[in-house]
Each structure stands twice: as structure tokens, then as C-alpha cells.
């Protein structure tokens, strides 16, 4: 049984030895930034941008609510900031080097691409190894490339929106990303184009003592629609890996963006990510954020509701197992009248895992007709499991409404007994109960993901009673 759990939970726990043409070496300095900029052959504005960001990173403290001892102890000099093969991005899987292709095949990426995706980008350490989108979308003017290509070939659009949603100095890790970013997706959907099937990015960390800093920028034109999926895995190493992405979404008037994450990093990855979106008038943005892996995740997807009647939603699932800390949440910033936001967060703490919800709902002065509803439910599986909720609501004026509901529950012994009286084994009863707890949220995921998600959660749960 242990072996079975290990294999399924850690089906991604393998790595391959590859030669890197580019390796920035250990540590972080202005020389590191120059190394990355040279490797990518960047223009001087970008090089300056990176250097300025690095200065900000050095000068900034960790966020003040950040009391995680492990992060304070993290040694930024023991990480390599850029590892790349220096090959062109493949547009067919035949173009991808064999070892890397094999990695993504084992992770099921090409299979999913054939089954239900409109486009795929597969990133291996610092750079994309593969990227392809259906021709029909290309003809309609949709752009889906990695950020390196995006900056080269679509600089006029990229530069206009880049770092406008997440300023470089937003926090220490957004500054770090801005200094050393590489990879990630650049998506542009022209006005009126509805991309029916999801676009997917798969982020793979292969190397030890490595930091992955992808930068994703998604711009969706008036009345256009897109769904973006991201998956992430890494092999387990004894040393720490760092993943610190910045993701910016822009929904122009009436546009609709759905961004779905299934984060299953191995338990040695620090996952410190800044995700933020802007919704213009009648825009509609939805973050569906599922965190199962990593050692520590600190991530609070945000939506700035900038135009009237914009809508925002964050659905968050976090599972904190033994030794894990999931510090997740959401931020909703209402800046226009009649904007609506909704946050549903469900967390499960197993053994000594700690899952916390940290949220901010802000309604700017002078507005009316704004609504927020926040609902946080936490489930504790074992005696030592912990959960915490830190909501903050700043609502000014009487013409708006913000509601917050929170619950913490333990698995109900009578429920488990009832199921066992029907012949169901205790561990299965437990996982039925846990799946029941998050079922309404899991249903929001595409089928292919929800099956996988349920399976992962079942295994974590069944493992909890040993």
C-alpha cells in the first residue's frame, strides 16, 4: 500500500540528467542578471528593468506577515537561477530533445494535448521546450507563446501590459521574479475571439538547487474568452527548490478569463507566487487554484475590479499534509461601482499539515452596489492538524455589502461509523468524506483534472490513517 501511494502521489518523482548549455551557477548578483539577459539576447530596456528589480529585491524585507521560519532561513545563494539548453522551442514533439520529451510523456502532457487542449506549452526548468497551438486559433489572431518569444516577437503588446498589474516592487518575490524571470506564457486573445478549449502550460522543475521564475502575461480583448490551465511538478530532492512566478491577467471590457492551477510540486519546493488580475468593465475573471504539493506555498490570487460591473471569483482548494504549509487565500479590490466578487476557499489539514486562509476584500471609498461574499471552510483530519483564517475586509460606505462566513470542522465520527456499518473500510470512508467536503469545488475543474485531483486527495487522505 505504501508503495502504491508513493507511486501515485509521486508519479512525477523522477528526473533526467541533461546537459545545460546555459547555467548561471549558484547565487544571485547583478552578474547573474547579466548572464540571463545575455543568454536571451535581450534589449537594453529589459536588462535595465531586471537590474532595477534586483536592487529592489535586495532592499526589500520579507512581507511582514511572513512569519515562516523556513523562508527566513532560505539561502538565496544556494540556488541556480537560470538553467537552459539553449535550443529552440519545439513546435512538434519530434523537435523536443528525447530526454525532455520522455519527461513530458511520462507526465501525460502530449496525451492531454490530443484529448482536450487547444494549445500546450511545456517548460523544462528555465525555458519552454515545446509550444504549439491549433492552427485555427493562429488564424484568428490568438497568440500563445512562451514569454521569451513573446518579448522578442510581440514586444509592442508585451511591453504595454508587462508589470502593470504586478509592479516590480509589490513584494520581495515579485521583485525577484522581475530580476531573473524566464519562461511562462504570453497569451493575447483578440477582441471577440472565444477560445473554446483550454490552453495549457506545464511547468516542470527537473534540477536540484534550482529556482524557476516563470512570468505569465495574459491579455484578453473586448468580449473575448479564454481558459488557461497550469500544472506543475518536480522530482523530490533533499535540498530546497524555489518556484516564484508572477502572473498578470488583463480582461478588457466584457472579456472572460478562467485560470486554473493544479499545483503538485514535490515537498521540497518553496512556492512563493504573485498572481493578480485586472478586470475592466463587465469583465469576468476566475482563479481556480488548487494546491496539493510543495513544502510551503504562499499565494493569494488577486483581482482588481477596475471597471463597472466587473466580476471576480476565486475558488481555492488547499491540502496540507504532513510537514506542509499551505498559506493561500484571495484578494478582491473593488475600484468601480456594481462590481461583484466571490471567494470560496476549502482547505484540508492532514496530520501536522497547516492550511491557512489569508484574504483581503477592499471596497474603495465613494462606491456603490459592490458585493463580496467570502466563504472559508476548513477540515481537520487528525488531532494535530491545524488551520487558521485571517480575513480582512475594508469596506467603506453603506451602499456596498461584504459577507464573510467561515467554518472549521473535524471529520465526524458518526459519519465514518455510518459508512463503515455499510461495509466501507475506514480509509475509504474517510476519503469519501473528504471528497464530499470539496466536491462542489472539484466539479469546477475540467473533467480530466477533477479525476486526477480526486485521486490525489484520496491518496493523501487514505495515507493519513496509515
Amino acid at each position, binding site marked *: 500500500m505504501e508503495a502504491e501511494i508513493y507511486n501515485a502521489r509521486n508519479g512525477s518523482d523522477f528526473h533526467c540528467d541533461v546537459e545545460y548549455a546555459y547555467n548561471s551557477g549558484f547565487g544571485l548578483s547583478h552578474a547573474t542578471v547579466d548572464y540571463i539577459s545575455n543568454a536571451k539576447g535581450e534589449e537594453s530596456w529589459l536588462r535595465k528593468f531586471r537590474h532595477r528589480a534586483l536592487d529592489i529585491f535586495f532592499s526589500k524585507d520579507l512581507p511582514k506577515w511572513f512569519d515562516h521560519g523556513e523562508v527566513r532561513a532560505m539561502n538565496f545563494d544556494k540556488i541556480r537561477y537560470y538553467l537552459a539548453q539553449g535550443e529552440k522551442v519545439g513546435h512538434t514533439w519530434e523537435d523536443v530533445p528525447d530526454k525532455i520529451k520522455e519527461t513530458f510523456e511520462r507526465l501525460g502532457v502530449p496525451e492531454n494535448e490530443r484529448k482536450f487542449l487547444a494549445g500546450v506549452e511545456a517548460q523544462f526548468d528555465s525555458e519552454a521546450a515545446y509550444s504549439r497551438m491549433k492552427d485555427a486559433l493562429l488564424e484568428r489572431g490568438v497568440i500563445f507563446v512562451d514569454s521569451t518569444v513573446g518579448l522578442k516577437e510581440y514586444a509592442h503588446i508585451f511591453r504595454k501590459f508587462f508589470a502593470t498589474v504586478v509592479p516590480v516592487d509589490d513584494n520581495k518575490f515579485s521583485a525577484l521574479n522581475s530580476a531573473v524571470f524566464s519562461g511562462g506564457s504570453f497569451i493575447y486573445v483578440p477582441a471577440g475571439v472565444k477560445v473554446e478549449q483550454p490552453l495549457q502550460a506545464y511547468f516542470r522543475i527537473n534540477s536540484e538547487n534550482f529556482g524557476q521564475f516563470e512570468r505569465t502575461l495574459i491579455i484578453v480583448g473586448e468580449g473575448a474568452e479564454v481558459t488557461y490551465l497550469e500544472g506543475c511538478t518536480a522530482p523530490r530532492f533533499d535540498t530546497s527548490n524555489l518556484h516564484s512566478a508572477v502572473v498578470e491577467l488583463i480582461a478588457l471590457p466584457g472579456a472572460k478569463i478562467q485560470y486554473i492551477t493544479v499545483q503538485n510540486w514535490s515537498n521540497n519546493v518553496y512556492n512563493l507566487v504573485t498572481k493578480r488580475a485586472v478586470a475592466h468593465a463587465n469583465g469576468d475573471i476566475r482563479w481556480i487554484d488548487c494546491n496539493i504539493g510543495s513544502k510551503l506555498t504562499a499565494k493569494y490570487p488577486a483581482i482588481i475590479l477596475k471597471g463597472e460591473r466587473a466580476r471576480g471569483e476565486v475558488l481555492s482548494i488547499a491540502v496540507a499534509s504532513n510537514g506542509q504549509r499551505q498559506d493561500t487565500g484571495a484578494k478582491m479590490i473593488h475600484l468601480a461601482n456594481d462590481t461583484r466578487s466571490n471567494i470560496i476557499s476549502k482547505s484540508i489539514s492532514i496530520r501536522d499539515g497547516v492550511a491557512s486562509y489569508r484574504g483581503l476584500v477592499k471596497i474603495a471609498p465613494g462606491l456603490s452596489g459592490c458585493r463580496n461574499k467570502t466563504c472559508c471552510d476548513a477540515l481537520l483530519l487528525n488531532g494535530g492538524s491545524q488551520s487558521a483564517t485571517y480575513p480582512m475586509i475594508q469596506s467603506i460606505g453603506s451602499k456596498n455589502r461584504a459577507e464573510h462566513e467561515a467554518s472549521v470542522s473535524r471529520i*465526524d*465520527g*458518526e*459519519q465514518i*461509523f*455510518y*459508512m*463503515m*456499518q*455499510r*461495509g*466501507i*473500510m*475506514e480509509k*475509504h*470512508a474517510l476519503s*469519501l*468524506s473528504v*471528497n*464530499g*467536503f*470539496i*466536491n*462542489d469545488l472539484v466539479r469546477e475543474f475540467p473533467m480530466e483534472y477533477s479525476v486526477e485531483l480526486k485521486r490525489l486527495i484520496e491518496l493523501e487522505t487514505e495515507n493519513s490513517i496509515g
Partner: protein
Amino acid sequence: MSTLEINKLSVSVEGRMILHDFSLLIPEGEVHALMGPNGAGKSSLANAIVGHPHYKIESGDILFDGASIIGLPPDERARLGIFLSFQCPAELPGISVANFMRAALQARSKEHVSATEFYKKLYECMDLLRIDRSFTSRSMNVGFSGGEKKRFEILQILMLQPTCILLDEIDSGLDIDALKIVAKGFNSFRGEGISALVITHYKRLLQHIVPDAVHIMDSGRIVRSGGLELVDSLEESGYQRVGT
């Protein structure tokens, strides 16, 4: 084989004795009724038989098919064929009727339970109990009326086909029409190879589920045993007289 034999069973809950040297034999194929005042220990007996963790066996034995089941976890006892229809069935938020029933069915089957066969059987049983088919996607027992919960307990009997059935106040909260449907469901199932214990306060149920024997219980012991005539004298004079 489904004979249930309880020998000199003593049970405590949190240090308090609930059953004292309790003995009862229900041979295969028979339905026995168990009556008695509130607090007599009827539900405790049922819970002890199915292995509820709150009930501690102090001494005595419970034999099913001649083998002791004491010490077996509740799910194993269930898979041997022992089923308790709860007085207040637990609500299972987020677990649909269909998912739950299928998990329970799968738990006792070595082969994969196919979706087609499962739904066919489920719909047949639901029709018999006049349960609307839309219930399959609702969370088990959540927001169900008292009567609906009882029908779903019987539905599980029809689906899981246990051989030893304990009905704990299946009639509480049921109107006469629902009672008839529930009794009809049970009667369609009882018979050869099935033993059952029917716990109730009222004669009304026993007019629809006619027992082979009646036992009156008080303070953790059986005080009288007999046939249906015992029920009549109960209705006339109450537990006090019958017990003494």
C-alpha cells in the same frame, strides 16, 4: 446461515453499565421484536452488535453463524451480513446517494460493480419504495425528511442484501402510508436465510412486520419473551405491569 446469538453480554458506555448478562437467540429465518421503555438499552444492544466504538463489551459474546464477532471492526461485521437501520441515520454532505450506495456495494464485492447493473438495481429498489429517482444525485440523508431517511435505510437493505437485519425504530416519524411502504419493502426481503431484530415502541409496526417472537426489555435485560399476545397486554397495561 444467519443465526444471531447473544450470550450473557454486558456492555458499558463511558463506565456506565448499559446491558447486563443479556442473552438472546434469533435463529436463521426468524424475525424477533424487541420492545421496552426508553432507556431500556434497546439501541445500545443494536449498536454493540454492529461494533460502535462507544460501546464497550465488558463480558459475554456475540456469535454470528456460530463465530464470535467481538473485536471485529464495524466494516467487517457489516460485510459478514449484519445491517443496522439507524434510528437517526447520519447525514453525509457532498456524498451522493448513488456514490455512497456504489461504494458500499463495491466494498462487499470482489468484482467491479458495473455502472449499468448498479443503476438498474438501484432504480428497481427505489421504485419499489416509491422514492423519486432524482434523489440519486442528492447528498445522502442531507435535508431528507424523517420518513425519507427511513426509506433510504430500507433501500440499503434491498441493495446490500444483508442476512442479519437490526431495525431500530424504523417506524419513528413515519405516517401510516410511509410505514406501509417501509414494511412492504422489508417484508419483500425477509424470509429464509435472513434473521432480523425489530426494535419498536408500537404495536402498529408489528401489525405490518409480523414477528415470530416478542421480547420485552428493561434496564439492560430481557424481562419477558413470548408471542404477539405480549404486545396486546403491553398496549393495555404498559411496561410496568408486563415487566413485573
